[in-house]
């Protein structure tokens, strides 16, 4: 059976990649009115990257092929 941790890895990796992509886009094309406080910290870039890395680690460690 596929481990629950693999599903969690997929979720974190996909969400992290999407968030990171949105952050990088805003970094390259900064909006005139960001609409959020502390925009200069570009939280979606580094938080997206953190989620992506953790997600990939989980995906790799609990991959169905490795588990079987």
């Amino acid at each position, binding site marked *: *059976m*596929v481990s*629950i941790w693999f*599903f*969690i890895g*997929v*979720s*974190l990796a*996909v*969400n992290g990649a*999407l*968030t*990171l*992509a*949105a*952050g990088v*886009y*805003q970094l390259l094309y900064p909006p005139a009115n*960001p*609409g*959020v*406080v*502390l*925009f200069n*910290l570009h*939280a*979606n870039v580094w*938080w*997206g990257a953190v*989620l992506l890395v953790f997600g990939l680690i989980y995906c790799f460690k609990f991959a169905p092929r490795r588990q079987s």
Partner: protein
Amino acid sequence: MTPLLASAVPPRLVHLSPVDVVIVVFYFALVLSIGWYLKGRANTGEDFFMAGREMTAWVAGLSFLSANLGALELMGWAGSAYQYGILATHWYWIGAIPAMLFLALVMMPFYYISKTHSVPGYLKLRFGEPSRALSAVSFAFMTVLMSGVNMFAMAKVMQIVLGWDINFSIWVSSLTVAIYVTLGGLRSAIFNEVLQFFLIWAGALLIPILGLYEAGGWTNLKLQIAHRASEQYVHLWAGLGSFSNNPMGINWVGIVFGLGAVISTGYWTTDFLVVQRLLAAKDIRSAEMAPIIGAGFKMMVPFIVILPGLLGLAVLPEKLVPESVAAVTGGHSYNDVLPLMLARYCGPGLLGLGVTALIAGFMSGMAGNVSAFTTVWTYDIYRPLINRKGSDHHYVNMGRWTTIIGVLISVGTAYLVMQFASIMDYVQALFSFFIAPLFGTVVLGMLWKRATSAGGFWGLLCGTLSSVGMWAWVKVDPSALRYVALSPHAKALAQDMYQALWAFVVCVTVTVIVSLATNPIPDGELTGLVYGLTEVPSVGDVPLYQRPLFWAAVVTVIFFVLNIMFW
């Protein structure tokens, strides 16, 4: 626990970008995929209702916590932190940790070795059919109503935060839960709860991090709160010497004995919604470790719930008001503080994560309600009272249909609440009537072999009726609160604490008196159910760091350190 209901609809708080919508849609696709994947592993009663009793300590522990970590819980307590300050943390620390450790070390061995399917099932073994019937019917009825109330409240929140249509929110979320629980049973509910636990942290953790950065750290935050509200808002215990010295209008007796000793212990040890996750553990060590793991994470939840409320006090330019005032003025209420903080810091992507965290929190709570309802209905009502001779396959089918019917009843309740808002308060009050007396009955049953069947039944009934009586007394005459809570300065929250305390006392007193007046149950019939007559199984020959007692001690030390730090 905190009601979330706005009667007016102000403009939506946040606007989702396309990437946020993709994140939310991906979440729904993933939970449905998990349910579909697990559908072939829910063919027997043990698989469908008990997840095959093969969950590890981590999976059972995170699911145990996640079933309680609903979106309304997150938003409601963030709002309470804005309203009452750090005192709201008591519901996460003294109002949870001692109870979870008590469950792990004292009660879990009995639940586990009795091989019961449910808490009412334990009452059947210990006190007989009448106690089980009373407990099962009240639990099933209340669980499905609560699920509907939460469904409506969540749909209302989605309308306020995102501008979503209420009907859309109710049907999409309820059908999703119905599909994945019907397909995969408890295993599917547990898997999704663990996933939802991670999503809640992924979506909510940035708010306190960025908030502390903006506020200039914890010390500066305390100064700003003292300036904008009161110094009492950042002290856990210093203002609890009397009812009038703190924003909640409660004292330390109510917090320690009402909340810590009765309400929380009753909830965490006898509410089948959370206990069911532990009964699915693969062995006795996992069953004991799971609530300890849950306790460790529970201590951290204030970081994503209470701290955003406190940060809102310091950094939000507008002053939030009670629901009743917000409904008239069109302003934002206390309960909007978490979405407001989300909108303040989270841009594209992060906003999708935050909204997904709220949806995930709601759905984990609903799946918990539905799976617990299904098990209690099938094993504690349908099988003993309606059809004793069905096959295992028949009961699994009954479980699947009950899941769908339970969701439909919840949807019906949600629409009923939409028409008659006052029903919400009554249902929430009704649910609280049963917790304290049920704890009294179960704990006496486990620890006192002289407790008899008649004692257990009458104690449970009288404790519940006394709770209803006190609630009705204060409802009819609000000044009666001074007698229930023993102080003219007591406020509404104090009523819950003292009502539970008295209901517990009544339950225990009646159980003891009736038990002593009736014939004792022979010792042979209590083996495996009561301390002193049961050989509690060992967790095995494992190193110290794998022993539940060791980790319970670690959690206890951290618990005391945290309470002293924020005294």
